[in-house]
């Protein structure tokens, strides 16, 4: 069997196996390359994620008292939020938000507080249309990936369907999602072929497909060598009047 014949056959049959996936790779790759990753991450949608702490901190609830109350604390974070000082106490069991002036526990954050925080963090032009406490791990949305529940899900009515996830324990903005992120994630699923969790690119399906895809690309490049080779002249059967180049013939009756 001649090489170009073999190359075309191989390319064609490999296309059957991996052709559609190759298109998914290319199209999803083009999307991921083209759309700014900072936009996908939602950076333009948020503000006030960190705030400068005030200068006058003399009246704070003392840190040594916090350590007395929470002897298991591995970290005590002092931050400002909506202008007010807060402590976030982390232990092996979880986190607690405290009012840094009174020392009072602010956890858990209620619905109106979650909405106020979401509005505080939001830099878009929409309004909140829903705020739901997610605590049923059987009904967790895939877009929060492996982030632990509970979480306040706050949805906005802007064009790109922005959704904020706010921690009910610390009030932090855990993550934000929007239409373009969701599309990105959907395409990422096809790109890495992890249709279940959309995170694991060490899966065997991807490995096999990528190997076949490599062969597919190589046979394509191989085929290119033949396709671009200078066109030979066809050997016309039965009637051979086209053999040779007639331009060499000069009419001259002997």
């Amino acid at each position: 069997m001649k090489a170009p014949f073999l190359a075309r056959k191989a390319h064609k049959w490999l296309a059957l196996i991996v052709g559609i996936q190759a298109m998914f790779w290319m199209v999803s790759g083009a999307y991921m390359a083209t759309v700014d990753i900072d936009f996908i991450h939602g950076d333009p949608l948020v503000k006030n994620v960190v705030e400068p702490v005030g200068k006058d901190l003399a009246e704070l609830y003392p840190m040594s008292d916090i350590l007395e109350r929470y002897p298991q604390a591995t970290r005590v974070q002092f931050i400002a939020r909506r202008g007010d000082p807060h402590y976030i106490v982390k232990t092996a069991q979880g986190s607690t938000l405290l009012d840094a002036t009174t020392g009072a526990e602010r956890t858990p954050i209620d619905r109106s507080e979650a909405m106020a925080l979401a509005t505080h963090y939001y830099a878009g032009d929409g309004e909140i249309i829903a705020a739901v406490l997610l605590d049923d791990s059987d009904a967790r949305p895939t877009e929060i990936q492996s982030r632990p529940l509970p979480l306040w899900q706050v949805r906005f009515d802007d064009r790109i369907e922005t959704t904020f996830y706010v921690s009910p324990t610390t009030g932090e903005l855990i993550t934000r999602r929007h239409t373009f992120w969701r599309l990105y994630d959907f395409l990422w699923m096809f790109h890495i072929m992890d249709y279940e969790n959309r995170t694991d690119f060490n899966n065997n399906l991807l490995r096999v497909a990528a190997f076949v895809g490599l062969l597919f690309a190589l046979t394509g490049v191989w085929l290119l060598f033949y396709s671009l080779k200078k066109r030979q002249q066809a050997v016309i059967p039965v009637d051979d009047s086209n053999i040779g180049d007639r331009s060499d013939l000069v009419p001259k009756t002997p």
Partner: protein
Amino acid sequence: MTRTLVIEVIWFRRLHKWIGLAIGIQVGIWMLSGLMMGLLDHEHVQGHHYQAVADVMPVSASSRNVLSVGDILERAASAAPIFDISLRSHLGRAAYQVKNAGGSQLFDATSGSRIVVTAEDAAALAGQDYSGPGQIVSIEPVQAPSMEIRRHSGDAWRVAFDDDDATTLYIAADDGRILERRNDTWRLFDVFWMLHIMDYKEREDFNNALVILVSLIAAWFSITGVVLFFDSFRREDFLALVPGGWWRSPAQIAVCAPHGEVVARVSSHVGGRLYDELARDDIVLPSNCGGGGTCGLCVVNLGPDWPESAADRRLLSESQRKKGIRLSCQAEVASDMVVGISDDVLSAQELTAEVAECRFLTPFIREIRLRLPENDFDYAAGSYVHVIIPRYKLEYAKLGLTSEASRSCEAVGAQVTNVNKSETRRAYSLATPCEQERGTIVLNVRLMVPPEGSQALPVGVGSTYMWSLQPGDKLDIVGPLGDFRARESNADMIFVGGGAGMAPLRAIIRSELLYKQSGRKIDFWYGARTRADLFYAREFDELQGQHPNFRWQPVLSEPLSVDGWQGPTGFVHAVALQDLIGQDRDFGACEFYVCGPPPMLAATRRMLAEKGVPENSVFFDDFGI
């Protein structure tokens, strides 16, 4: 597939080919790098396999008697706004970490003194984080960003371990954070990542202009590919996978050589692609595209009634299609079909010959003897070969033209040089029968000078090259080709030739007289312009003397006075006709073999047709060289 769609598909095919040329290699690199990133375990890549489970000590275990946040803020004395003041333990003591936009600082939570992360501290922090089998082999200060800590800034410690993966931890010098866990797996991964995102400098930005451009092209490329995919597959392709194919209608393909004799019978199935089915039986037609319908090489004769495909219309001339020529890669096998193929497909070889000898037979015809690498080049008298004319640039001055040829070239204003821009082929008939000298072939090459007044035409690129050859030069040829042959019969043989049409006629005549010891009556009329244009004349005179059944008659069309020509003058075919009538020959009992310049050929055929000679007893070689 409907016909209109097929016409559109060729554009996708072309697009696919040219885009493939532009980005094919990168697509391959994406596949390879994607595969490698898929294969490299991400736990290893991220250094998690040698990362200790964090066992973070409660702050109160070090000290409960800590300074207040306000005290620390004073000591930090930061001009930039501070965002975060965190109390945590650092190497067994309580410490405050103060973050501003520029970075962070660490303070002892009890004394308030500034903590600096020393090399020893870095080693201790690295040791806490590391669970692998290696030992620390070096601790060096480094400055971020650098390739392995490109997302960070500021001073850092580079702590290297001697494990099998060359683990290297980076510790921030300001607050003792683990910045990165790097190892050889990551380093390999990172190279593929770089290739994948096409950011060869920073290896970070997958929104760079190059990858955007190439990936958008690739997306279109893949869409053209999908269109071709649906166009390329037929139901038959899948049925062909199953062995036996008992449910498919069988078909017999009779493969015929040009004279009509069946050279092979191929068992196939209705609906298969003719090209593939023939290839399955080792009848591999020439093809560059391998059956894609783009190169136009895999031609067969299926008869004028066979439906024309879009590719046939695109690649074959109307006259070819009218004769039944089709592309075999586009034809579906029908039950009991007859396929005409060139017998060259079965017998032609490609070989490299060496020029043995060159001489001028006339001012415009050069005889070239070629020595072949093997002695097994068998061919029937009347065959021709294709000569591969490579790209060249030649100066006429160095060709050693005869003075007549030089004058003629000057007369048509031929440039000083002749250039052949792309490799091409020329057909030349073999001027001797195979038996004469095995392993050697002889060509008669006429220098093709355009007629005076046709300045636009260059001197023939093939003949110029052939005239430049010297003994020892190499030449690639393909052959034997053609079906101009002496027929097996007892009929009289009438040869009419002119110019370089001498070659195949001479081969057949010599074959008949010298090797077949044929007793058939053979007459040869050969036309030339002047006496100087006559060649092999003495040889034919001798043959005529030795063989009473052979007679030859040279005819000059424009004899010069110095020629002192006593023989017939005029057009060779007219003289031949006159003589035949004069001899009262029965035209119906003769076979006519004609070879020469196209006008002569056409005139002779017309004349024979007028005389009622049936077409099947006129044999001609159409290209006259």
